[in-house]
């Protein structure tokens, strides 16, 4: 029987989504103020991300994330201050020491990493993580996330093929927002669904409404249970919306139709989750408002703190290239 997302966790997930949303909006604003060099928004992906993480165990599982996953990262226990240090390249940025774009690198508290901006490179790396856990008999699952665009890369194909052969404890979590920057799905693939590709690799593929925390939790939990019991990988395709352009450097009105943008606006996962919780009686209007106010305040306080911090300094420019080799060589 499929495990359901418990009612008492739903408000918790919603809280993380709202916090991520305000932080995401703030990153965009800081870019427009000339303070944040770049941001890639996760707005529209939040429900899928928090529900996916909820189905896993951050105390032992591994997460190879990608550049549009602010809500997932918040769900894994990072703070707004930490993320703002990334957006603003401040000293003490936890994942790369501000050598990389926001939330790239590796996190000190959770096994979550994102080495690169190059699409799909994390996918074979995730298979390596999962393979090494399997060889040592460790009870850990690896979740690798990516967008629909990544599924066109050879690394995605090569890895799904390999993961199927070795029945790796690996979840391929595709957040399908139907755009690879500007290229729509019908120019990325001749088939209807990314999930259907799993058949070619010998493991299940499931397409799910990525605005539903309940549905995403259920399919991910099933995949995690399957992986933990040694039955191998699952490809999950969460259908989400990209509510903002690709990044702060993009203008999606150049390539998205008005009808498409209208349709998208009706699938905002924060509104959908709010309605779900209100209709289930898990939240009152007043409590919902309080969640929003609290998140907004948290982001404001964090922004005030981090904006006054210094940029990551030049003294760390040359270290951590290799263990023993000086950069001057």
């Amino acid at each position, binding site marked *: 029987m499929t495990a359901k997302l418990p009612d008492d966790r739903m408000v918790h997930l919603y809280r993380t989504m709202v916090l991520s949303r305000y932080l995401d909006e703030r990153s965009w604003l800081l870019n427009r103020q000339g303070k944040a060099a770049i941001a890639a928004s996760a707005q529209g992906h939040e429900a899928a991300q928090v529900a996916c993480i909820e189905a896993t165990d951050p105390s032992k599982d*591994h997460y*190879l994330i990608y550049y549009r996953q602010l809500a997932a990262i918040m769900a894994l226990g990072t703070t707004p201050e930490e993320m703002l240090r990334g957006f603003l390249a401040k000293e003490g940025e936890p*994942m*790369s*020491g501000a*050598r*990389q774009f926001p939330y*790239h*690198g*590796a*996190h*000190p508290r959770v096994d979550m*990493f994102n*080495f*690169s901006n*190059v699409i799909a*490179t994390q*996918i*074979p*790396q*995730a*298979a*390596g*993580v*999962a*393979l*090494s*856990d399997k*060889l*040592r008999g460790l009870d850990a699952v690896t979740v690798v996330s990516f967008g629909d665009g990544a599924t066109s890369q*050879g*690394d995605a194909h*090569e*890895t799904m*093929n*390999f993961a199927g*052969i070795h029945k790796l404890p690996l979840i391929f979590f595709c957040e399908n927002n139907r755009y690879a920057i500007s290229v729509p799905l019908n120019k990325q693939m001749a088939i209807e669904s990314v999930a259907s590709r799993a058949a070619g690799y010998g493991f299940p593929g499931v397409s799910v409404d990525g605005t539903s925390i309940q549905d995403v939790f259920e399919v991910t939990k099933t995949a995690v249970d399957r992986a933990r019991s040694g039955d191998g990988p699952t490809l999950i395709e969460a259908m989400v919306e990209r509510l903002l352009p690709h990044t702060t450097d993009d203008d999606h009105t150049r390539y998205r139709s008005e009808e498409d943008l209208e349709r998208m606006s009706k699938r905002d996962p924060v509104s959908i989750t709010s309605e779900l919780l209100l209709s289930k009686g898990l939240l009152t209007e007043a409590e919902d408002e309080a969640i929003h106010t609290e998140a907004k305040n948290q982001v404001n306080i964090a922004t005030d703190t981090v904006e006054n911090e210094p940029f990551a300094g030049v003294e*760390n420019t040359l*270290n*951590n*290239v*290799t*263990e023993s*080799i000086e*950069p001057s*060589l």
Partner: protein
Amino acid sequence: MPEQNLIEAVRETMRSEMRRDESVIILGEDVGAHGGVFLATDGFIEEFGEDRVIDTPLAESLICGVALGAAVNGMRPIAEIQFADFVWPAINQLVGETARVRYGTNGAKTAPMTIRIPYGGGVRGGLYHSQSIEVLFSHTPGLTVVAPATSYDAKGLLASAIRANDPVIVLEHKRTYRLVKGNVPSEDYTIPIGQAEIKRPGTDLTVVTYGLMLHYVLQAAEAAAAEGIEVEVLDLRTLRPLDKNSIVESVSRTGKALIVQEDTLAVSISSEVAAIIAERCFFDLDGPVTRLGPPEIPPMPFSPLMEAEFMPSPEKILTAIKKLADI
């Protein structure tokens, strides 16, 4: 002290490293039942099992990406690229990803992995089984590149690579696998990465080289000695980081430098060595820094006559040595 050819030294080193450290695993094409196309892993699947000796699909990016993921998760993988010519699909995982892990995570993650790459020509390998691919890796901060040319060095440098806490590219010249034999102590030892070695002392000029060319240069140096020219032969052994001090020390002493390589010359190891000499030995030089390499054509044609025309040879090297000595 047993005599081993270079491929035997590679095989026995990997075998002993796998025995001493369970986190060492091997991934590559045909490394399992076949034992590798050069038999580098002959008998390994029987001894270590298919969990640690992993026959991968034909997918080089996958091999290196999986090795990287395993490395950051506590293993010490050895990825085998079957022929250097096939490494290009994996460049993104190696140069773009692996090299930057320590820097890009500010030291939180490291990639203790070894990438073994049989390279080089003179084996009738044509355009796609002969390439020298060292330049791109040697240009890349975060990577370490070694190119052992003797059985002794192969054991010591491969052991150092496997035990290193960073990614190391190990370039093994295919022609040396069975051509080169030498004494290899059976006891455990390592050779520090980043140290060149004088393989033949001399006073009149220094030849800087690496890989198969070391053996051709040593032959040429013998012939030169018969004509009264004492050549010092410096084997780089590590291509990144280059052992600048050994290059400078030798060339400052002899006053003349010839750099010999099998790879084409433009923007190559020889370019970097020449730049180091120009920067640091200027006032000690008695002649121009010279280089010998193949012509600027895609390495390397299949016909035996064309291949011989392409490859530097002991004869061509001797001519270059005599020309420089006469200046």
